[in-house]
Each structure stands twice: as structure tokens, then as C-alpha cells.
């Protein structure tokens, strides 16, 4: 469970390719889902133009088939005649992210009942067969009914724990879109938009929770780099090589403002720390202006909330950037044997990058090749292969 609840960080430190993939690396994400109230919840979520595109495609193929679960008022009633109260909306969020449901079901339920997506649309977004999704949906629906999971806001002593689950679900919606997957750019962008809208909606309902604001800030600061992350032909562009003038200034400003407000609460948490790390990148006019010393400190702080080797590896990379590559490499080499990191390709990519910086090309090539033997997205494979070719050539 600890490994599932672990937040993922910002391996951006050395390479954007590493960072982007890292956002999802620590969390297993089998795409599945469940249905819920088809009531659109967050204003605007279901109205994204991009989403409408896929929706039309999907509608053409098949009408929504999975049974909708009744949550609160009957699903057929129009939302204008029968608006959900904020309290009900909040209860619905917590119900969808109930820990008695498996994580993929939590995410699909959230998209279903809060964003108003049909099960067919969710299947399309997560690139799973519709039949698979329908089966998962039915199972989750039955579990909610039979186990007595109710639409309600958890009691205060439980709120923090349950809120962490809600934040994780929203974060997963975003990272599924953010990481380079086999889907089209369009699909990925839609999931990022949905994640941000969900986070914004939650922030509206829970304005006094700094971690919620921290999540909104994190997603905005990361997503602000979206168009700069890939080149004309869809290849990944490293953070240090990105054209920073293409970053979305408005999103960065809003993210920074939200983060500052959240930090003023004096109740720090992992999302605020991740957002602060993202802000270190977004405030640097050039890659070489990045305040790596600050990032090292932030990762050190993050380890208190997420004491796991993935965060340690990120910290090592920040150390390499602020101090020198060999210091960071020493830490990474020590972490390499950790069972949680052995099959994590991004550790090897990060090692390879530091070896490259140290002009140890043969070892760098070896490390890149090790990463290639582990699961990578198509874009990452292209990136690593190009690196090997550069070093070998």
C-alpha cells in the first residue's frame, strides 16, 4: 500500500524526459474503471472542445452501455433543476475515491461521476477495450452498493487520510495524460485538462486545504510546459533544452500564486513541496539559472513525507546538478541495488545522463541500454536510442 500511496516527483532535475515519466513511475496504473452518476459535476470539465471531439467519435461507435450507479438524486434528473449542493459534490468526490475500491476504479468512477464522461469515453481515454471497462464498471458499482459505501464527507479525524486518496486520484488522471503514452497527443492533453479541472473543482469546495491548492499549483506548473515538451515530430524535449518562451506564462503565474498562498498556511505537505520544486524550474529564465540548491533542500524535505528511494534518487540528481555529477552519481550507485529501483528505467537513464556529463561515454551507453531493456514509452525509447547514437557516434 505504501508503494501505491507514494506520490511521484519531479525527476525533471536532470532531464525532462526523466521527469515526465517519473510523474507516474511510482504508481502502478492499470487502466480500468467503474461507472457512477452520469451527472456532470465540475463546470467546464465535460465541455472541453477537445473532449467533444473524442466524444463524437465514441458516440458514433456505440451508445453508452454500462449501467449508471445512482448516487443521491436520480441520474436522469437535470442538473439545473436539481443542483447538487457543494456538500453533496464533496461527498461524491470522497465516495469515488473510497479506499475500499481499487485505484483504477476510483479514477474511472471519478471521471464518470464528476466529469460526466461515459464509460465508453473513459475506455477510449485510457485505451482499454470497452468490454473490459464495462466489466470493471459493473464490478465497482456492485461493490459500492453491496458494501454500503455512501456519499458523504468523512468525519474530521478521517478527512486528511481520505483527502490524500482523492488527491492521488486526481493526480493520476493528470499523470496518465502527462506521461508519454501510446495514445495520441490529443488524448493525453484531455486527461491533463480533466485532472486540472478536477483539482480546481476540489479547491473550490475545500478552499482552506493547502494540499489541495498545492495540487492545483503543481499541475498548472507542470502543464505550463506541455507544448514545449515535444518537438514538431512528437519527440521529447528535455527540460534543459526546452524553449522556455513557449511555456504558458499565465499558468505559471497562477500556479506560483496558489503555491504561495498554500505555503502561507504553515501546513506544508507533499503536493506543496512537489509544486515548489516545479516552481524552481518555472521561475528560471534559463536552464542554467535553476536553483538546484533549493531543489536539493525541497527533496530533502519531501523525504520526510515520502521516505522512499524514488525521492532519494531525485534528490541525488538535484545534488548532481547543484554540486557536481560525481557526487550525485555516488548516491545513485548506492540506490541502484534497491529492490524498488532495480527495474525502474529512469534510475538508469538518470545515471546515464550523469555519466555522459562526466564524459564517461561507454558507461553511459551501458546504462542507457539497461534502461532500454525495461518498460519505456515509445517516446522515451526514441529518446534513449538517440542518446546512445549520439554517444556512440
Amino acid at each position: 500500500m505504501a508503494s501505491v500511496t507514494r506520490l511521484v516527483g519531479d525527476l525533471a532535475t536532470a532531464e525532462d524526459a526523466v521527469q515526465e515519466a517519473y510523474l507516474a513511475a511510482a504508481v502502478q496504473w492499470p487502466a480500468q474503471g467503474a461507472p457512477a452518476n452520469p451527472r456532470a459535476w465540475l463546470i467546464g470539465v465535460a465541455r472541453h472542445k477537445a473532449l467533444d471531439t473524442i466524444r463524437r467519435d465514441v458516440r458514433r461507435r456505440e451508445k453508452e452501455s454500462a449501467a449508471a450507479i445512482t448516487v443521491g438524486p436520480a441520474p436522469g434528473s437535470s442538473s439545473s433543476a436539481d443542483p447538487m449542493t457543494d456538500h453533496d459534490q464533496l461527498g461524491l468526490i470522497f465516495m469515488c475515491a473510497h479506499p475500499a475500491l481499487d485505484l483504477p476504479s476510483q479514477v474511472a468512477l471519478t471521471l464518470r461521476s464528476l466529469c460526466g464522461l461515459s464509460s465508453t469515453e473513459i475506455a477510449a481515454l485510457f485505451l482499454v477495450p470497452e468490454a473490459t471497462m464495462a466489466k470493471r464498471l459493473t464490478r465497482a458499482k456492485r461493490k459500492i452498493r453491496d458494501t454500503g459505501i455512501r456519499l458523504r464527507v468523512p468525519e474530521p479525524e478521517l478527512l486528511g487520510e481520505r483527502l490524500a486518496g482523492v488527491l492521488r486520484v486526481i493526480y493520476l488522471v493528470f499523470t496518465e495524460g502527462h506521461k508519454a503514452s501510446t495514445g495520441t497527443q490529443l488524448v493525453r492533453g484531455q486527461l491533463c485538462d480533466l485532472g486540472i479541472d478536477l483539482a480546481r473543482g476540489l479547491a473550490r469546495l475545500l478552499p482552506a486545504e493547502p494540499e489541495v491548492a498545492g495540487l492545483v499549483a503543481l499541475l498548472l506548473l507542470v502543464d505550463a510546459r506541455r507544448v514545449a515538451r515535444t518537438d514538431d515530430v512528437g519527440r521529447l524535449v528535455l527540460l534543459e533544452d526546452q524553449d522556455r518562451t513557449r511555456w504558458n506564462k499565465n499558468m505559471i503565474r497562477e500556479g506560483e500564486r496558489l503555491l504561495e498562498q498554500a505555503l502561507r498556511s504553515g501546513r506544508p505537505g507533499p503536493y506543496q513541496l512537489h509544486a515548489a520544486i516545479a516552481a524552481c524550474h518555472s521561475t528560471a529564465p534559463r536552464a542554467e539559472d535553476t536553483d538546484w540548491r533549493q531543489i536539493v533542500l525541497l527533496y530533502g524535505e519531501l523525504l520526510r513525507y515520502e521516505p522512499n528511494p524514488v525521492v532519494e534518487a531525485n534528490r541525488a540528481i538535484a545534488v548532481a546538478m547543484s554540486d557536481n555529477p560525481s557526487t550525485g552519481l555516488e548516491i545513485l550507485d548506492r540506490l541502484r541495488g534497491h529492490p524498488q529501483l532495480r527495474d525502474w528505467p529512469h534510475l538508469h537513464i538518470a545515471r546515464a545522463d550523469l555519466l555522459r556529463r562526466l564524459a564517461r561515454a561507454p558507461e553511459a551507453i551501458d546504462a542507457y541500454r539497461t534502461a532500454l531493456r525495461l518498460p519505456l514509452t515509445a517516446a522515451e525509447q526514441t529518446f534513449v536510442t538517440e542518446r546512445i547514437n549520439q554517444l556512440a557516434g
Partner: protein
Amino acid sequence: MKYLLLLHSPSGAPVDQASQEYADTFAAYAEANAAMAAAGVLLDCAPLQPVASATTVRVRGGRTLVTDGPAAEIKEQVGGYTLLECADLDEALKWASTIPAASSGWVEIRPVVPVSMPA
């Protein structure tokens, strides 16, 4: 809703009723059960005799087959149960986490199917 809580303790319950361990375990359960009774959610609860005492019955083709022991060879066995009447799963979860078995082992929460008597 009724929830049956199945209490699993891998180490098993202390056997020696004169031991301090037995007294401590007894007291811990008594405290948790008293709180549930005071909240009005406790319908029934009891420890079970060790699995060695289990007897399994099957009726097949009109014949009753009685065998010694549990139906399946599984490592962890239910050591007790608690039957609660709760508003929802969250309430059942809250009480389940106060039961000592949740700390020493685990508690499985099974919703009870409401069956009405035929008229």
C-alpha cells in the same frame, strides 16, 4: 446495514487463561466491545475455538458427510467475529479498526445480505 467482521490473528489467541497475556488480550477486546456497545452498533461478538475444533459438514446426494477440520487447508483462520449494525461502510471501518485483531492481524469486513422472511 449489518456487517460481519471476521477477526484474523495469525499468532492465535493466548491459550493459558492464567497468563498476563490472556488478561491483556481479554481487557483489550472488552474495551473495544464496550465502546461499540455504548455506540449502539454491536449486535453480537465472540471468539471462536481454535481451528482444531472445526467440523465440516456437506450434504451431497442426500447423504450427510461430516469431516474433521476446516474445509480447506489455509494458513490463517478466523479467530472470532463481531456483528455490527452500522449506517455505512465508513462506520464499520471505524469500529473495525478499534478491534485488537486489526493491529495484531487483520479484520475482514463482510456486509450481511439483508434477507426478509417470506410472508
